[in-house]
């Protein structure tokens, strides 16, 4: 089999797909309860764009919240139009008969506040100026997001999530949910996450931010008013990000040192397939993501550190949680390696929390959390089957 072309990298292992949630339509919740942010500022009112799959049952106890990662959004499963080339970002795991089975669960996924896919964010109009917020949009934290998601939860008539689930930055939101709203989280599924960023993680984020901020088209974040976007900066940020999402092995397997034209050209045009892949990822990202949002998301990652308010003791920070936990890591993930997940598991065990931990053998790096790796999905499925079983028993009793 030939190596994949960079234009349309295939997702491995997607041959068997049970059901799709089909065509989905985003909805918007307008929330007028002011949100007091960690940075001290307030957002008086805001929109949250979200999608739901499956049906909320009568007892409203089958709701699952999916929290998205850095560049994700509310479109987790299904397609908006039949001709969409790709389904939602976690379509491998969400759908009828899939590990997060929409025949049993009511799945909710929200575009985080500060995002660029419809929820209030830097692209929205600042009511005080009549212009886009741009750089004036307040810096958000993971806790701010969780507070806004909590407002949406109440709006949807849900008082407790059967599970809150997410990978990477999404996993951090899951932890924050379990800490901030213990009574509202029955199960917490934390995938490929970390209890806080390492200096190396922050360093990568900083390079990404500098790429954006030093782009001549950035205009101190007011590029929208100038009718431009900081293409080069955002593209570089995404290219850098992608390197950290893949493992050395995955890159070798996917691209090796394969040349596009078969021989070296002694120039600086795209020659190696990996260059072509990164440029494709970078340029396509520019068309679908906002630079100010990218800056905000990386800051939220940097600031996340629930232990900081508990004498740097993660166990103490997690002590309020009453949820049962499932923690999953991937062997080749060097962005948030298994060691980081182990920190979370250890802290949970130390306070006698109910926790299971699976370390999935995978060569795909951090991106593995989006892949339908059989063992990974077997564990997810088993865990969610248990949740569904508990719901049924509680419903009968």
């Amino acid at each position, binding site marked *: 089999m030939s190596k994949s072309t960079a234009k349309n990298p295939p997702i491995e292992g997607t041959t068997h797909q049970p059901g799709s949630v089909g065509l989905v339509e985003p909805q918007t919740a307008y929330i007028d309860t002011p949100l007091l942010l960690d940075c001290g500022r307030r957002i008086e009112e805001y929109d949250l764009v979200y999608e739901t799959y499956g049906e909320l049952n009568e007892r409203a106890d089958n709701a699952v919240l999916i929290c998205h990662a850095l560049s994700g959004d509310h479109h987790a499963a299904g397609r908006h139009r039949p001709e969409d080339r790709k389904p939602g970002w976690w379509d491998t795991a969400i759908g009828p008969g899939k590990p997060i089975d929409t025949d049993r669960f009511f799945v909710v996924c929200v575009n985080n506040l500060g995002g660029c896919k419809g929820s209030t964010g830097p692209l929205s109009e600042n009511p005080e100026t009549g212009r886009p917020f741009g750089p004036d949009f307040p810096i958000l934290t993971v806790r701010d997001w969780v507070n806004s998601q909590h407002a949406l939860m109440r709006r949807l008539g849900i008082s407790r999530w059967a599970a809150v689930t997410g990978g990477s930055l999404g996993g951090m939101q899951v932890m924050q949910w379990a800490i901030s709203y213990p009574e509202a989280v029955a199960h917490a599924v934390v995938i490929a996450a970390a209890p806080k960023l390492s200096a190396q993680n922050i360093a990568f984020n900083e390079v990404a931010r500098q790429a954006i901020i030093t782009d001549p088209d950035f205009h101190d974040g007011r590029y929208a008013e100038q009718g431009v976007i900081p293409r080069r900066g955002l593209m570089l940020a995404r290219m850098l990000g992608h390197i950290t999402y893949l493992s050395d092995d995955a890159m070798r397997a996917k691209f090796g040192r394969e040349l596009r034209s078969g021989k070296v050209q002694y120039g600086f045009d795209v020659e190696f397939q990996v260059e072509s892949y990164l440029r494709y990822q970078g340029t396509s990202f520019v068309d679908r993501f906002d630079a100010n949002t990218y800056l905000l998301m990386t800051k939220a990652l940097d600031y996340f550190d629930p232990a900081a308010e508990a004498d740097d003791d993660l166990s103490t920070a997690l002590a309020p949680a009453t949820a049962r936990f499932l923690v999953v890591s991937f062997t080749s993930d060097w962005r948030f390696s298994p060691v980081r997940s182990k920190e979370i598991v250890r802290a949970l065990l130390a306070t006698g929390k109910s926790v*299971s*931990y699976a370390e999935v053998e995978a060569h795909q790096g951090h991106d593995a959390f989006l892949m339908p790796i059989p063992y990974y999905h077997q*564990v997810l499925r088993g865990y969610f089957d248990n949740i569904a079983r508990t719901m049924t028993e509680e419903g009968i009793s």
Partner: protein
Amino acid sequence: MNRPDWDIVTGWIGAGARVLDLGCGDGALLRHLIAERSVRGVGMEVDDERVARGVGADLNIVQADLDDGIRDWFGVHSFDYVLVSQTIQAIRHPERLLGEMLDIASEGIVTFPNMGYWRNRWQLGVQGMMPTTKALPNPWYNTPNIHLCTLRDFESLCEGLGIEILDRAVVDKNRRSSPLLRALPNWFGEHAIYRIRKRVV
């Protein structure tokens, strides 16, 4: 299906105890202990398929390799009992694991196939071949059981490590005890079950 050592292990564990089962497999013993003793259990297992089955059975399973040590995972005295059921013979450093077990729990329960069982002695001593029995079914070249021992070996290791033996039970494969077995446990016991703790100095 109960394994020969289960009844005795269950009898030793107090109701509602905090139990860690090392090398828990698919968690069958944990489930048994939860049903019989309402324990709060955690299992540790390295094999993917078994971890998935344990998680699917609603147990708390931590996927880790016992050969990497367990002290990183748990605080001092975080459990009442740590179990190693039919696993110690497959560990790279059994002596290290025993020490770590008794750091994190007040008592340890260890069960293993007795290499001194007469059938094993017969096969090795008279037939001149590595034993293969129901308890030790694998051929020498393909076996997870790399550290086999007899009752006397185990007891002498405990002595050397400052470990006190609180209880010992020896059974044959039918979980029977007999006068012969009680008189000559290292000859007639197919499975050994020990309850141990750190010797108080």
